[in-house]
C-alpha cells in the first residue's frame, strides 16, 4: 500500500543529493533564507517520510491511544485555530442550530450522502477522553462523542481507488476572490478507518461549542492539532491530493507544514 502521494517518493539520486545537502547545511552561515529551499526541501521531506514509515510500522496492529479518566478533563480546553468562522452563511447555520447544515460525503464513493446532524447522531456513537496535542507544544484533555468515520465511509461505500479522505471546512482562513482560502485537511485510510477516528458533535458531554468546530469536527487522535479539521461540511474520498487546494493535502500543509502529523 502506498501511503504518500507519488511525488513525495525520492529517487536514489535525490536521496544522495538530500544527504549531502543536509550534511553541508551547517557549513553555511546564515543559511536561513535557503533553509527551506529546494535542496533542503528534499531532505526535509525525506525525514517526514522516514518518520511516517517507522511510525506506521509501530502502529501496524492499530492500537488505541490512551484514554483518560473524566477527572483529568481540562477545565478550559483552548480552541485550536479558528474560533468563529467569518461570514453570513456560517452565522445563518449557527442561529438555526445547524438545522439546515448537511454533511456531504462524495468523491470516490458508491453512494453520495447528504446527512443532517440528527441523522449523524442516530448512527452508532463512540465517546472517548483523549489528549489533544497542538504542534506548538500545548496539550489539553477533552471528551469527544461522535460517529466513527469508518461507519460513515462504509455507508457511502468507498471505491477501491480511494486512498485519502479530504475534509472541507466552513472557515475561510484567507479571503481570496476565487474563495480558495477555506480550511481543509486530509488523512489516509490507515487513519480514517481507525476506531478512534470520529466525527465529533459533542464535547465534554454537551453540544460541540462553536469555538471547537460546531457542528462537526474531526478527531484523529494519533496526529497533532491542525489535522483535526473543524466546521466540517464535506467529506471527499480521493485517490490523490495534488488537485485539491494547492496540492499538499491541507490548508497548513499548503503553507509548509508536514502532511504527516504523527509527531
Amino acid at each position, binding site marked *: 500500500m502506498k501511503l504518500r502521494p507519488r511525488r513525495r517518493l525520492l529517487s536514489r539520486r535525490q536521496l544522495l543529493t538530500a544527504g549531502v545537502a543536509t550534511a553541508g547545511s551547517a557549513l553555511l552561515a546564515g543559511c536561513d533564507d535557503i533553509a527551506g529551499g529546494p535542496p533542503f526541501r528534499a531532505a526535509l521531506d525525506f525525514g517526514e517520510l522516514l518518520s511516517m514509515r517507522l511510525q506506521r510500522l509501530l502502529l501496524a496492529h492499530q492500537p488505541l491511544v490512551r484514554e483518560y479518566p473524566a477527572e483529568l478533563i481540562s477545565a478550559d480546553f483552548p480552541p485550536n485555530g479558528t474560533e468563529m468562522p467569518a461570514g453570513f452563511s456560517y452565522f445563518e447555520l449557527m442561529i438555526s442550530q445547524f438545522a439546515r447544515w448537511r454533511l456531504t460525503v462524495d468523491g470516490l464513493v458508491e453512494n453520495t450522502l447528504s446527512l443532517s446532524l440528527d441523522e449523524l447522531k442516530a448512527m452508532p456513537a463512540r465517546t472517548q477522553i483523549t*489528549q489533544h496535542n497542538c504542534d506548538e507544544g500545548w496539550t489539553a*484533555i477533552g471528551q469527544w462523542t461522535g460517529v466513527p468515520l469508518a461507519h460513515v465511509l462504509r455507508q457511502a461505500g468507498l471505491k477501491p481507488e480511494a486512498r485519502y479522505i479530504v475534509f472541507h471546512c466552513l472557515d475561510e482562513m484567507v479571503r481570496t476572490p476565487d474563495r480558495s482560502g477555506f480550511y481543509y485537511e486530509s488523512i489516509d485510510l490507515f487513519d480514517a478507518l481507525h476506531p478512534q477516528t470520529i466525527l465529533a458533535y459533542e464535547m465534554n458531554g454537551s453540544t460541540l461549542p462553536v469555538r471547537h468546530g460546531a457542528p462537526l469536527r474531526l478527531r484523529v487522535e494519533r496526529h497533532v492539532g491542525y489535522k483535526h479539521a473543524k466546521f466540517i461540511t464535506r467529506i471527499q474520498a480521493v485517490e490523490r491530493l495534488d488537485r485539491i487546494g494547492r496540492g499538499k493535502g491541507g490548508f497548513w500543509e499548503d503553507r509548509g507544514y508536514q502532511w504527516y502529523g504523527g509527531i
Partner: protein
Amino acid sequence: MVAFAMTIGSPPTDEQGAPQREVIHRHSLAVRLTHWINVLCLALLLMSGLAIFNAHPMLYWGHTGYRGMPFLLGIGSKTDNGRAVGITRIADVDFDTTGVLGVSYDGNGRAQRRAFPSWLTLPSNAALALARDWHFLLAWLFVLNGAVYLGFSLVSGHVRRDLLPNADQLRARHVLSEIWDHLRLRAPRGEADRRYNILQKFTYLLVLFGLLPVMVLSGLTMSPAVTAAAPLLFDLLGGRQSARTIHFITANLLVLFVLVHVLQVLVSGAFNRMRAMITGRYVIRPERAS
C-alpha cells in the same frame, strides 16, 4: 582500531633515558566521524528545538499544559513605560531577561518579542513548520549516528577499554586527587594522559547512557503516534508535558556539558586535542620534572 595503545612516533625516552614527546593514535576513525556528525546534529537540534519552544514558551508538569494553567517556567514580555521588557518566570519568580530572553534585538537594534533570540534559533524567524522539519530530520541523523557509534564502541571494545573506569581509578584517593587537579585546571601528562581520567569517564558515561537516551525518550513521548504504539512512555516520564519539560532540562544539561567539554579542551592543549579528534594523532607530553 585500538584507540589508545598504538604508538606512531618515537619511543618514550631518548638515549639518555629522559622522557620525550610521544605521538599516539588516540581516536579511531569511527569515533572521530561520529563525534563531528554529532556536533552538527546537537547544534542544529538545539537551535531548531529552541525555535519550536518559542511557539509556546512555557513548561508544565503532568499530562496537560496550556495558557492559563500553572507553569514551571515561562518566557514572555511586558511593556514598561513604552519599553519592551523580557520576563523569564521560574516557579513564580520573575527575572528581567531583556536582551536575551523574552525581548531581544535584531540587527537594526529593534526590539523583538520572542522567547529565545533569533540568533539562537533555526530558522531565525518564527517559522514553526520549518523548525519542526529540521528538528525531526536531524533527530533521525542523530539517532542513526548514535547507533553507529554505540555499535562500533561496543563491538570494538571502546566502551570497555576506554570508557569504563579502571579499578585503580575508582579509589577515593585517586578520585580526590583528580578533582584537585581539575580545580587547578591541571591537564594530565605522561602515563596519566594515555587514558581518560576518572571524572572524564564518569561524565562521558553519564552523557552517553544517561542524558542522550533521556533526550530521545522524552522526544518520542511528545509524539502522539509513538505514544499510541508505546503508552508506557507516559508512565516512564510522567505525561506529555513532563516529557517536554524533561526534554528541555536535559537539553540544558547537554549545553552545560558542551561548555565544560570545550573549556577542558581549551585549557589542556587545544591544538593537540583538536588534532586528535580530527586526524587521530595525539601528542603525550612528558611528565613534569619533579
